[in-house]
Each structure stands twice: as structure tokens, then as C-alpha cells.
């Protein structure tokens, strides 16, 4: 017997080896060990914050000292329900989020279709880079750029003036917000639709043609239904990103352009009324929950 073998046989197996053996025998332990760190992070940082948010919505603030009064009350929610102001702010937010989503879907679909099915390989790469390029620059810079474009003496009016069309008064208005939001979130709509269209096998389209369907019918009855989950997935991004934004309304919005986010921001940062901010912040949460439920039915999650 060689000395090394003798030593290995005589010594009890190492800790690492015993550990890995235990893990091998008990799959549940393996799962628990790998899942615990991310799950702890998720629960502690993410869900606990949501719970605190929801609970503090039932508190109030002492107006003079600014201290939080820990009495359970529905007052914040009552204010939200009774006041026309907050109705119109919530409706403006949801309405604009929907408008931006539809606009982006209309803009993104033809582009994604061309990029995925018609463009040659080299061009595809170029288009891919072009779509993602704006995301490399800061969101704020892009919004400020739009502010300069849309201002009264800005690039847009200057160009229109040179063309002899006259002035367009869209700076600092809901129109400005619609334009800027649609621009900023467009890549998030293009990418999922692109992926969905790319995934449709050529054989499906060939089969459709073999069965006598013309181009338009094939598009309407084969390609579009298969791309729909992609649109639904993209709409989750554009809708939720618009719904939660408050910087764009602040920078390019007009006199009555407050979003839910602006009221939340001011309630926390200016009025020091965290409970009311928490109460209003539950509105987009509920809207998003409903939206996700609908998107799931449309198969958006399979397309992600």
C-alpha cells in the first residue's frame, strides 16, 4: 500500500466533502441555500418597504410639528375618493400612460417587423444598436433636450418658421409630455415585439400561403396574433414607466400637468405628508396589478 493511499483511508473525509455529500443527498437543502440570499434581499428590501408603505397610508401628520400621528384612520383614502382634484390627476396619469402605450405600439410594430423579417443581417445589427443607443445617455439629458426643442423659441418652432408653416405652441403642455414619453419609452416597446416577430417560424407563413392566404390575411391571422404577446409585454414597460414618472411632467409639463408621482413627490418632499403620499401611491399599484392580470391573459409573460 502506498503511503498516500494509507493516509487518505485513515483520515476522516474533509468538511467540504461531507458538506457536498449532504447537499447531494438532500435536494431541498440545495434549493434553500441558493434561494435564501436573493429571497431575503427581496423580502427585506422590497416587500417590507411595500408593507410599510401600505401601513403608513393609514396614519396622519400633525400639521404644525410635522410628526406622524399613529392613529388608524381612513382619512387619506377619503380625501382621495372625495376630491375631484385627485380624480383628475389619477385619470390624467392613466390616460397619458395609455396614450403613450398605444402610440409606441403603432410606431414600434412596423419598425420591429422590418428589422426582424425584412432587413438584411448587417442592417439588423445596425438597427439594433440604433434602438439601444439613446439608452446610453441620461434620461434627464434627453428630457432637457426635448425642453429646448419644444420651447417657444426652440428648434421645432425655428424649423417650422423657416418652412413658413408658423408656430406650434406645444412647449410646456400635455402634448409635450405625450411626445417626450413616447420618445423615451419607445425602445422598451420595440425590443419585445422584435423578439416576438423573430420567433415566428417561416414555415407558418409558408403554410399560410400554401393554403391560399394572401399577404394581408397571413399578417392578420397568423403573424399578428403570434406577435400580440410581444406587444402586451412591451406595453407593460411603457405603461408602468409612464405611470410612475414624475420628472418629465415637472420639466416639460404645463400649468395642469401634475401626475400621481408629482403629488407623491410633493407630499413627501414639500408638504412632509408621508401618509398621504403612501395612500396615493397605492393607486398606481392597484392599476398595475389589474394591468398585469390582463396582460397575463394576453400571454405577455410567455413573450418576455
Amino acid at each position: 500500500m502506498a503511503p498516500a493511499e494509507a493516509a487518505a483511508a485513515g483520515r476522516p473525509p474533509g468538511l467540504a466533502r461531507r458538506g457536498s455529500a449532504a447537499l447531494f443527498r438532500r435536494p431541498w437543502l440545495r434549493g434553500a441555500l441558493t434561494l435564501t440570499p436573493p429571497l431575503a434581499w427581496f423580502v427585506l428590501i422590497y416587500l417590507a418597504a411595500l408593507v410599510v408603505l401600505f401601513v403608513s397610508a393609514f396614519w396622519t401628520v400633525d400639521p404644525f410639528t410635522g410628526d406622524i400621528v399613529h392613529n388608524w384612520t381612513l382619512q387619506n383614502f377619503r380625501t382621495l375618493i372625495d376630491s375631484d382634484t385627485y380624480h383628475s390627476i389619477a385619470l390624467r396619469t392613466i390616460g397619458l400612460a395609455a396614450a403613450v402605450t398605444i402610440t409606441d405600439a403603432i410606431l414600434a410594430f412596423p419598425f420591429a417587423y422590418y428589422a426582424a423579417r425584412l432587413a438584411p443581417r448587417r442592417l439588423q445589427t445596425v438597427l439594433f444598436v440604433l434602438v439601444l443607443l439613446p439608452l446610453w445617455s441620461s434620461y434627464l439629458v434627453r428630457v432637457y433636450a426635448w425642453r429646448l426643442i419644444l420651447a417657444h423659441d426652440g428648434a421645432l418652432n425655428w424649423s417650422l418658421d423657416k418652412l413658413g408653416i408658423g408656430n406650434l405652441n406645444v412647449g410646456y403642455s400635455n402634448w409635450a409630455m405625450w411626445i417626450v414619453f413616447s420618445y423615451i419609452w419607445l425602445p422598451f416597446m420595440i425590443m419585445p415585439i422584435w423578439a416576438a416577430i423573430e420567433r415566428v417560424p417561416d414555415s407558418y407563413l409558408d403554410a399560410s400561403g400554401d393554403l391560399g392566404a394572401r399577404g394581408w390575411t397571413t399578417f392578420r391571422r397568423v403573424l399578428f396574433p403570434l406577435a400580440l404577446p410581444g406587444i402586451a409585454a412591451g406595453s407593460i414597460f411603457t405603461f408602468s414607466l409612464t405611470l410612475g414618472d414624475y420628472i418629465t411632467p415637472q420639466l416639460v409639463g404645463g400649468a395642469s400637468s401634475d401626475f400621481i408621482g408629482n403629488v407623491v413627490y410633493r407630499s413627501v418632499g414639500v408638504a412632509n405628508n408621508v401618509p398621504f403620499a403612501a395612500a396615493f401611491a397605492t393607486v398606481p399599484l392597484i392599476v398595475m396589478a389589474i394591468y398585469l392580470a390582463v396582460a397575463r391573459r394576453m400571454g405577455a409573460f410567455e413573450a418576455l
Partner: protein
Amino acid sequence: MSILGFRLRRLWRPAMICVVALGSVALATAGCGGSSNKSSGSKLPTKIGKGEGALNLIAWEGYTKPDWVKPYESQTGCQVHAKFGGSSDEMVTLMRQGGGGQYDMVSASGDASLRLIKGGDVQPVNVDLIPDWQNFIPQLKSPPTNTVDGKHYGVSLQWGPNVLIYDPSKVSPAPTSWSSVYDGKYKGKLTVPDNPIQIADAALYLSKTQPALGITDPYELNQKQLDAAAALLTKQKGDVKKYWALASDEIDLFKNGDVVIGAGWPYQTITLQDAKVPVKDLIPKEGATGWLDTWMLSAKAKHPNCAYQWMKYISTPKVQAQQALSFGETPANTKACAEMDKQQKGGCKRYHADAPASYFNSIKFWKTPVADCGNGKTDCTDYTVWQQKWQEIKG
């Protein structure tokens, strides 16, 4: 996704238990953390000690220009970190956030200072350590906005009116009345501050144009008077291009030709004129609201010596004159008049540093509206009501 969903379902129950347990822990902490000790029973310092090397300020935009901050830093070794507050409300909130102590001082206006004193967010200061305090105009040595029960909660700084700014090339004839911002003549070309205290500006205008309402003080409004002011402002909203939150917003709006008339501070006028934008400002015939600012010391200031050195420095005639000329306001220190003339010909007269007491008294200085507005009247609307009204007006 579907595979993941299957795994997730098996994990759902234990995860849920964790959420509930951790959630209740977080709740308990939040509940305990809410109550803080806000009383400060410390004795006043009798001398200024060695600086702590830093000073954190909440200031109005334009109050911490390098022109006078740099010399202070090199003299004292205290590095100044300034955050701009866009409104008095924001300043009060910043002073209170994180249990206070994040900032050492705040340049509080009269509509914030009493709230900070009552809330225990600021502490009394020893004015004997600020030699120039003796040279302040009599009204600003112990004004009711920063002195309560004989205790000084900071030193007065500067004061001035909220003015009507306009572009003379687009607005003619030159306006003489605040009616120019209410009559809709400049629809879509108007900007006003995004600030609930703007209600007082409307009330001041109504007190002159609709005497039947019986408004005597624009900060003491009963429900009917408040509703009248709110109605005027709601009508005005149709004409507003944008409500400005920071002075730089209003400057951008005038620069890019988005607005031609608006309410603002002399600071915007001076900055725009420096940028060769031809604007003018005036105090219209109805008078004006105004500000009266105080450097206040946080109850939990981490750099009190630097703060005292700042109060001492900012009150000296030269610095007072610098800030007055740069912002377009009137210094508290009477000795600053000569300095202003030295730095800019006719500067003293231009910014009213030599004006009689009647000029000071003609400005309706910002103060916090409270329900109990004196003279046995308790039917006034308080600031919370004003904030709600402002939100309703902006919709």
C-alpha cells in the same frame, strides 16, 4: 416563465410567512422610530469655538454664491455644502427629514420660521456673538418671525418684495397693476410661483379691488375670503404657461420666449438682464408681498461653531452688500448702505437700503397662516387648508 412559476408556487407558502414576519418587524421599528425628542434645553454658547470643518446649509437659490462663500471657506476652514429649497414648505421638510441634524442652518423666510420654532427644529442663538447685530435696522433685531419670548432663533438676513417681471418688448403699455397677471391679456404667456403662499398675492390684490370682501391682512383669510382668492387663481390658471418651482425655471421660461410676464423675485430680473434678456420689474400699485429671511440654527446642528462663524460673517456690511446687490434685496445691516454704493454706483438707493420705515411697513411679509389669527378671530384658514386649496387650484 412557466417552469419558474411552478417552482415559485412551491416556495410561495414559506415566502409568505417570511414576508409577514419581516413586515411586522419593519412595522414595529417604524412605530418606535416615529417619536423623537424635539426639546432642546441646551445653554447658549458664550464664545465661538474652533470650526468643525464643514457647514451644511439649506438656502434659497442665489444665497450661496461663490463670491462670498469662497472667502468664508478660506477664512474659517468650514466647507460649505448648500442645498437649494424651492419653497418654504420644502425647507421645513428638509429640516425635519431623517430626524433633523442633516443640515446645520436654513435661510428661512417668515412663513417657515415660526413653524420651525414651534416644531422644535431650530435652537436659540446668542446674538451677542454676532457683533453686527447691533447695526441691524430696529425692525429686524427682534422681529416676531424669528424671536419668541425674547429668545432669538437666528439672525435676520435680508428682505425684499415679490415683484412683477415683464418683457417690455412684448408687454405694452408697461403694467402698473397686478391685474396684468389676472385679466387674461397675456394668456399662455404667464408664469407664477408654484407655492401655496401665492394665495396671499391674490388676497392682496382682492383687498384693493374688492373691498367688500373685507380682507385686511392677506395671510388672515376666513373661508369666504379664501374661496374668493382661490376662484381668482383658478381663473388665472387658464392663462398660466407653467408654475415655476425654482428661480432657474422662470429664468428659462423668459429666456426661451415661453412667457412675457410673471411674478418673481428681483433675482430673476438681475440674472436675466445679465444674460442680455431685456426684462424689467416693478412693485405694482396694489403693493406687494415679500420675504424677510433669517439664518436659523438647527436644533441638532453638527457644526455649531461653523454656523456661528457663518452668522457672524454673513452679517458684516461687505457681505450683506454683496448678497443684496447680487439678489436684488435689502440688507438688514444699516452699515451695508455705504458698501453697496462702493460696489455699485447708486446701489444703496436702488435696493432701498436707505428707505424710511414706511417702505418696510408697506410690504406684506410672508408669514404662516394660522386658524387663531388674533383679535379674537379664530375663523381664519390655516396653512394646511391653504396647501389643499393650492393643490385644487392646480388640479
